[in-house]
């Protein structure tokens, strides 16, 4: 017997058991694949399948809790795959002594559209993101900032604003936590708490672009 609160919609309750069942089947298929595979890269690709199974089981909860649990799961999976790919490649580089660049062709374009279009597109994306606020707005504004700075780098202009952006991101994170504290400690100021949290997470997610930039700087430097 499963205890279900009344607020959960009957549709979600009806597909709960099939969803969990499918998740377990897919996980078993993925783990079987990993157990018979010897090559490290192939195993890494197969962990994707196990990740999908994990996401199905989390999604089966079917409430906002599921949505908030899916995000960290995805981010952790992404970070893990990035790290393991890096390890595999550096091991191979040490073994063979050869090194291969991240970007296949040298990036040095000199086109007129690269000087005019990025500013316009970045401004529109940042304004639209600020209008949306919250997580989605942050993602859109971050895309705009990243696009602008990338186009600067591609043109060969030095862009050294990453450290400052990373600092602002940390401050915005504190803002977000303060917003949550206000919601719990002073519930009568809920609007202030909501705004702090919304714009804190907006700035935080937008400036996550800085993280990608810090990684890219080392790669682009060696032309």
């Amino acid at each position, binding site marked *: 017997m499963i205890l279900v609160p009344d607020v959960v919609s009957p*549709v*979600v309750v*009806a*597909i709960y058991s*099939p*969803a969990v069942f*499918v998740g377990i*089947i*897919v996980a078993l*298929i*993925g783990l*079987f*694949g990993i157990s018979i595979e010897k*090559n490290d*890269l*192939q195993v*890494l*690709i*197969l962990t*994707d*399948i196990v990740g*999908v*199974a994990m*996401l*199905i089981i989390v*999604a089966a909860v*079917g409430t906002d809790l*599921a*949505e908030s649990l*899916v*995000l960290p799961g*995805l*981010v952790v*999976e*992404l970070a893990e*795959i*990035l790290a393991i*790919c890096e390890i*595999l*490649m550096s091991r*191979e*580089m040490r*073994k*063979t002594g*050869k*090194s*291969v660049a*991240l970007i*296949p062709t040298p990036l040095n374009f000199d086109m007129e559209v690269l000087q005019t279009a990025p500013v316009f597109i970045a401004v529109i994306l940042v304004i639209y993101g600020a209008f949306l606020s919250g*997580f*989605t707005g942050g*993602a859109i504004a971050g895309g705009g900032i990243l696009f602008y700075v990338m186009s600067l780098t591609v043109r060969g202009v030095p862009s050294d604003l990453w450290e400052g952006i990373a600092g602002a991101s940390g401050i915005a994170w504190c803002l977000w936590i303060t917003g949550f504290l206000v919601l719990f400690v002073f519930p009568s100021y809920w609007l202030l708490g909501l705004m702090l949290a919304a714009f804190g997470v907006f700035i935080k997610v937008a400036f996550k672009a800085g993280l990608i930039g810090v990684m890219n700087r080392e790669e682009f430097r060696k032309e």
Partner: protein
Amino acid sequence: MLEVYIWFYTGCTLVIVGSLATVIGPGVKDPLVRTLNTEIPAVGLSLIFLTYNSTIALLTFIAATSIITLILLRTIVRLEEMGAEL
């Protein structure tokens, strides 16, 4: 409007068939084929998220999957250029 369950069960079928195709499908000894096959369960999972109305999870999942595919493809190509055994 079509029944909600259609999307859910289509998603489940795609996930199971896709994961089988990734593990024992034809030509999966080539890592490139295997990486492209993982897109099938990804589409199935997107349909399942869609059934549950998890918009932000769906958005993040699509973004993360495309980034993961990019990383994996570039890793495969770089390892092949270095002459590694795949």
